[in-house]
């Protein structure tokens, strides 16, 4: 009789230990590939970006979408086309997947307002996917938006043979050689449907991996009443 009770107690203890060990393992999720989430979300400030001659893009336009933001410039022959091609592919993947979540919105912000007109930006982004939103603004507004995301940029230009470093937010001086470069963030920033900045994808980027990460993030998202 005593033995029977001893075995029963032992079995209960074993079961409790087993449950304690296995539950966290069962709850383990697939790790994120390249998405890095902020410890706390950050609501977008008041911003005014130019979509085209008449359209102004503000924080309100981020609402109701999963937004992926990439900073660059259209004279960038290597890195920007590579990244926009991946973002176009991600947009395609998201549109092929049936989901009850908010749609993905890819936004390209040009940091080169002197050379990139809204029309030029839209022709550039449309090459990679017709629904990529191309934006720009004045230098002071651009630096405000870039710095909000913790993103930095700078430009190197030559004027009469002298090398000039033009920091973020400053207008390009007159009469510089038009073939200047813009050094910019290599990250892709994520803004949730409540227009809060929640994290970013660190380079190198892969469309399938980013889409996988974004689906995981979406699955954990509790939509606020908009």
């Amino acid at each position: 009789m005593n033995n029977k009770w001893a075995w029963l107690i032992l079995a209960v203890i074993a079961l409790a230990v087993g449950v304690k060990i296995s539950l966290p393992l069962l709850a383990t999720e697939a790790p994120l590939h390249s998405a890095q989430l902020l410890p706390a979300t950050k609501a977008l400030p008041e911003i005014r970006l130019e979509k085209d001659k008449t359209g102004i893009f503000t924080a309100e336009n981020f609402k109701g979408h999963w937004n992926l933001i990439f900073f660059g410039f259209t004279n960038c022959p290597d890195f920007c086309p590579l990244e926009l091609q991946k973002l176009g592919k991600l947009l395609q993947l998201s549109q092929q997947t049936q989901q009850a979540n908010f749609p993905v919105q890819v936004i390209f912000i040009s940091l080169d307002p002197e050379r990139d007109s809204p029309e030029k930006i839209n022709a550039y982004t449309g090459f990679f996917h017709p629904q990529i939103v191309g934006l720009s603004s004045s230098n002071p507004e651009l630096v405000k938006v870039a710095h909000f995301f913790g993103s930095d940029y700078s430009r190197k230009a030559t004027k009469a043979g002298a090398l000039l470093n033009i920091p973020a937010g400053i207008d390009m001086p007159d009469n510089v050689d038009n073939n200047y470069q813009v050094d910019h963030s290599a990250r892709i920033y994520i803004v949730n449907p409540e227009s809060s900045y929640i994290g970013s994808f660190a380079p190198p980027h892969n469309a399938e991996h980013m889409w996988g990460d974004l689906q995981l993030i979406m699955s954990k998202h509790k939509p606020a009443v908009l």
Partner: protein
Amino acid sequence: MLSGKLFNRKNFHDHPRDDRLMTAIKKIAVLTAALLLPLFCFAVNSSAASLKVEDAWIKLAPPTATSHAGYLRLINNSKQALAISHISATGYAHAMLHQTKIVKDKAQMDHLQVLEVPAGAVIALTPGAIHLMLMNPQQPQKVNDQVTITLEFSDGTQQKFVALVQANHE
């Protein structure tokens, strides 16, 4: 003295035997020069001859793009390092060698004054790394367009190859 005899012009031509010797020396000199000439020419062009260019392509860019990027693989089969100091491309105002680098999350593009290809080395110019920067295209770009690119080496020799415009290159 032998030296006196040989280098005294008058004495030299005074003896028929010495004339025959002089003719023989001249023939040897001409023959040697004839044999060495192709070797000299080969040396001048050795850079171009020993660099193999493979998989050269230019990425199809948006129609508004004022710069295009070219990619290829360079194989140096020689026993000497080769240095590419200048490039040019038909249909473009300027061409340069550039390198994209990610430094502290920032994408930056550096101009390479010289690209050295060490002896026996293979250097791949790929998207997001070293690439040809082709600026100010004179005509709109189309898939399958052929662009002749000229590499100029530090020794002054040149090598030409053709790169094909492609949307993607797997």
